[in-house]
């Protein structure tokens, strides 16, 4: 009986030790060999970024010229003053605008500059006096009686980051400095909104994050016209020659790009990289047959049919094989002898002066009529035609500005905006673009990174390599820096960081290693394990239960013995 007891004890011990071995060695071994590698991700910081709180700070310098302030006002006008405005865009996104105004009086040189005969000259000499940093605005307040601005113009905005503001009648201003500031502040804000950003711009830039309530059709079209922010753009000029038998076309695209497009792109260089190329496509037809209008003795294209014009051409345009940046297409169509002149009509059936149209986020098309060069059939075909690039590039430049989002919203009444000069872009327009692009980059990068984090969280099987983790961390760092720089008002740095963030986030999101593994559903995996697990675990479990029940019985027995 003693041996039987020993034997039973030994059996129990064996069962227990096997269970212990299985639990201590087998399970961890199985777990370790079948687990996927997942690097650590800064999930908390990503979640913080999901709740985006952007603060945009603008430095506004208000300079009072002589004659605008009374001596007692001059003493009392504060040195600096901060104005804040908070806007809640949606549940996760809040915006705060902060205008940091500095007040000072003009120094002698500035006074001299403001005495120039025209506003443009004053603007230029003010610029040479002091170059204001990127993203800031300088407003010069001039007296009501100044002749610098023409009659009826209250605000003048030049090529740089300066604006000239007429004070307004002394009576309306009032004597008190508080009244004065109260009079000035809304007008300064208005100037700043034109020169740096307005709430509509910023919300449009946030469209990647925030689903906009469908506003007016016009504003939607405006917001959708320009290309999305991207680290680079490919600009392609294509000359379409539908019939090389009737004319041979020559265009000096190299020279035209150099003198018309390049200055603008050089100006835009901090925003993105641009590459330009051109091609000539032969036998490139429009997708619709233009109607012959007998009253005009010309062919016409209606606005409704414009949508179909491109289809056959687009197949031949070709995407840029060597990069994945968005392509801006500018097509110059020269109709052949039998189909010219060709005019584009708008929705009101009126001919479009530029004879060009554009498609949002795609590019523009211009029709270039050359029928007067045919010389009434006397010259033998094909006719050699040299294209007047000045005319063409004027249109393409305007379209390029639209596509890139350099659109000045119509200036409020009383504003005089100096037309942009040789560079094709004023400094403040660049600033405006940089503001909205920075916000857009931040919005896009945060959306990308949060959705990536969500995806990785949802699918536990995805391997997260170290390089993805490092990309994610660098995205998060760049985003935090960009937000901080926006808050500090350093626009240039903010844009730089936001670009880095967007690049890193795209790289992480589209990393091919995220797709490598085959994902099997859990039930199938367990179906494969069952032939192994079931016969192994059932005896162990049963003997454990038996041991437990025996132990309980023994305890009961002991208890009863005690009793």
């Amino acid at each position, binding site marked *: 009986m003693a041996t039987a007891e020993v034997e039973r004890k030994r059996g129990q011990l064996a069962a227990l030790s096997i269970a212990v071995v299985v639990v201590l060695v087998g399970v961890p071994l199985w777990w370790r060999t079948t687990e996927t590698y997942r690097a650590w991700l800064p999930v908390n910081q990503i979640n913080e970024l999901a709740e985006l709180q952007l603060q945009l700070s603008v430095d506004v310098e208000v300079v009072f010229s002589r004659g605008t302030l009374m001596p007692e006002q001059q003493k009392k006008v504060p040195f600096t003053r901060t104005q804040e405005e908070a806007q809640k865009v949606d549940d996760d996104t809040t915006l705060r605008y902060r205008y940091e105004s500095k007040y000072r009086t003009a120094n002698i040189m500035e006074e001299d500059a403001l005495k120039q005969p025209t506003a443009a000259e004053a603007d230029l000499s003010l610029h040479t006096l002091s170059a204001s940093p990127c993203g800031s605005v300088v407003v010069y307040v001039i007296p009501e009686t100044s002749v610098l601005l023409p009659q009826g113009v209250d605000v003048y905005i030049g090529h740089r980051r300066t604006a000239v503001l007429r004070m307004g009648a002394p009576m309306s201003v009032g004597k008190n400095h508080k009244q004065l500031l109260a009079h000035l502040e809304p007008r300064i804000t208005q100037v700043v909104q034109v020169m740096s950003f307005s709430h509509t711009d910023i919300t449009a830039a946030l469209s990647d994050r925030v689903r906009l309530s469908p506003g007016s059709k016009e504003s939607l079209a405006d917001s959708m016209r320009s290309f999305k922010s991207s680290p680079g753009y490919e600009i392609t000029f294509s000359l379409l020659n539908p019939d090389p038998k009737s004319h041979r076309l020559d265009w*000096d695209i190299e020279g035209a790009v150099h003198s018309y497009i390049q200055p603008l792109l050089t100006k835009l260089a901090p925003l993105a990289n641009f590459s330009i190329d051109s091609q000539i496509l032969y036998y490139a037809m429009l997708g619709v047959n233009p109607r012959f209008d007998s009253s005009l003795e010309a062919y016409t294209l209606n*606005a409704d049919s414009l949508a179909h014009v491109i289809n056959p051409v687009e*197949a031949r345009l070709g995407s840029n094989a060597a990069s994945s940046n968005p392509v801006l297409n500018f097509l110059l169509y020269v109709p052949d002898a039998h189909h010219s002149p060709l005019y584009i009509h708008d929705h009101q059936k009126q001919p479009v002066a530029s004879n060009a149209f554009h498609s949002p986020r795609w590019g523009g098309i211009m029709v270039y009529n050359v029928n007067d060069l045919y010389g009434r059939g006397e010259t033998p075909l094909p006719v050699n035609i040299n294209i007047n690039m000045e005319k063409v590039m004027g249109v393409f430049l305007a379209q390029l500005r639209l596509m890139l989002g350099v659109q000045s919203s119509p200036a409020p009444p009383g504003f005089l905006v100096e037309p942009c000069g040789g560079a094709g872009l004023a400094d403040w327009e660049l600033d405006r673009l940089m503001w909205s692009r920075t916000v857009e980059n931040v919005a896009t990068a945060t959306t990308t990174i949060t959705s990536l984090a969500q995806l990785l969280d949802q699918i536990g099987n995805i391997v997260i390599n170290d390089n993805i983790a490092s990309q994610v961390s660098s995205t998060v760092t760049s985003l935090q820096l960009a937000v901080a720089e926006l808050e500090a008002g350093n626009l240039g740095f903010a844009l730089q960081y936001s670009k880095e963030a967007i690049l890193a986030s795209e790289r992480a999101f589209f990393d091919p290693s995220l797709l490598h593994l085959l994902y099997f559903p859990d039930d199938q995996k367990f179906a494969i394990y069952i032939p192994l697990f079931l016969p192994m675990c059932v005896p162990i479990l049963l003997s454990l239960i038996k041991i437990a029940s025996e132990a309980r019985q023994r305890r009961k027995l002991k208890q009863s013995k005690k009793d």
Partner: protein
Amino acid sequence: MAARRCLGLWFFLITLCVVSTGADVLHTTPVTGTESSAAGTETVVARELPEAPSDPGEHTAAEPTREGEQNDRTRGGEQTLGQPTREEEQEQEKTREGEQTPAQPTREEEEEEEEQEQTRGEEEFTREEEEEELTREEEELTTEEEELTREEEEQTREEEELTTEEEELTTEEEELTREEEEQTREEEEEQQTTAQQEEQTKRWEATELEEEHVHDAAVPPLAGDPPAADPPSPPPSKDDFQEELVIRPLHSGDIYASFQFRTVWDADFMGDQKVSHYRLFPKSLGQVITKFSVRELHISFTQGYWRTMQWGQPYLPSPPGAELWVWFQDTVTDVDGTWKELTNVLSGIFCASLNFIDSTNTVQPSASFKPLGIGNVTDHSFLRYATLPREIVCTENLTPWKKLLPCGSKAGLSVLLKSEKLFHSTFHSQAVHVRPVCQDPQCRTTSMELRQTLNVVFDLHTSGQGKREWSLFKMFSRTLTEACPLASSSKVYVDVTDNPQGEQFELSPATPLLTQAVVLGDRRTYSVYDLTQQASFGSSRSLNMLLRWKAADGEMLRPLLHSERYVAGYGLQAGEIHTLIYNHHPYRAFPVLLLSAVPWYLRLYIHTLTVSSKGKDNRPSYIHYQPSKDRERPHLLEMLLQLPPNSVTEVTVEFERALLKWTEYTPDPNHGFYVGSSVISALVPSVVAMDTNSTLDRPLFSSFFPCKEEASYFMRVYTEPLLVNLPTPDFSMPYNVICLTCTVVAVGYGSLYNLLTRTFQVDEPSPGLAKRIANVIRRFRGVPLL
């Protein structure tokens, strides 16, 4: 863990039950033959046929009756108009149709007439179809549009001072028809539907050009260089485009048609300045060359195998499947990375699976692939060569290839490239070659040359019910009507060497122009049709060459170099690759370079390499062998062999088949695995003196391979690709094997567990089997026996 063990076990089981099958050995006996003599210097002769009339408009003397009829049919008054326009041509055709009763045509003429009629009829048919469509559309037209038409007629009449209103109508119709045709053609494009959907969502708006912009544009922005000041003087011919079609009637009754399109652009792709303004050169390709710093790029897609013994040598050889070889510029630092990116981009451009090119099928040949353009690069670390023998070539590869042509498929020779006919052929090969070439004889400046070639062999003998005749229309279902207006030369050559007196076949319309060219070591005579000359099209305004064989069979000059390759051996473990290289030259020996790239899963035993010719050992004078690394790189074997005259040289090497991982098998593993063609590059002794001046104006088909010396010419021969069976597991097994092994493990474990934990009690004196086993274990463990 368990699963891994199971897989191992499963593979073990697989290897145990390897099935052995025998491999068929193919062998053909070499035939000896004679060789054509005739040596001399090459001249291009343009002679007129004796009967040729002086008027270029009436070009054929071979059919005087027909010519007369046509003259009768054409209205006399129109002849004075000089260059008749297209609508007149149609008019003429219609007239001809109306008076469709030739007086007394001979039988041959009748046949010819029939053929032409058929052609014309088919053309008419399509035209009629289109006209039907047109009329239907016209019915739908509103009165406004009718007015429009009439208005336009008036306008055109004013402009062109043409005679009748009827003609005007034809102009209109013609134009509309043409447009419609274009439209339908365009609609064939694949991207059409998607693009249209996209377009619908886009909002189109007229560009409102603000005053300031116009003003702005009018003022030259940069004071330094006003664009209007320097007169736009583009170099007169910065780029040049040529097109060419060579038709060679083959003795087997097949027809070999070879298209070549050449764009030469005097742009410096290798300089520092970025090339970005494209005219005739395709932008997509130019961008690739610029971005990846490509010096030379050769890519070919081939369907079918070129049968050298039946067809002779092709103008441009290519292996079955896809082949890509690229020389990079020496500024490229990471050649492998660039190569990988380049193959991916090219795969997108040509719609092909070039992205499957990776390190396991890429080699760096040391001697076989020298640059074909200028530049004497010897460092072969900038060269990459890969073949995909499995690649299937079809329309999706043809469409992007055609897009690279300046005229697309709209005009010139490229209108013949209709995929439904081109792929209904025995052999189809299309290629793109980009290389730098000399601009002038002194080679001071370089230009980039893009050659697009398309070779096709039609088996018209079987499809034409045994009639040995062909015409352009029969081959391509199109005829030629014009040259590409952008082409500086546009020619059709027909090889008539074997037909000096017209005893073999008859070619119509006959052409007065004959030219001779030295190509592939032989002087050939070609009839030339120059499409830039209106006279080539004759009065029918369309060129439809017709060739009718008279003699049933002719003697073909046997190619001097020819090769075969096959796999020998039985079973799925070992095998042997045999390569036979034939030298049919009766008295000259010449050297060849043999390159074979074998995938890693055939493990070559290089010590078994034997080279023998005429039963004797033939030691290669140069061997470059790079062993493979599993899953990393293939075997590369290059040899320089001297082929004795009139001999067969046999190269054999044994190999062992490797067992692949289960994910490495293709979706259809029992089909077998392809081994790409071997490449034999040779300098074959030429019977006539070759032309070594590369800048001379020569037909394109004879000027591809640069020729360094007069006595020999360069040639490349591709062997057959091999199809090798590898040991293939049953892929439905893994789950079963896992279940089985798990059960075995569980059963073993279970009994062991039982024995270890169960208590046994003595019941009877004679111990049972279980007790005895238990005792054995207990004795083993030193525990007291039961």
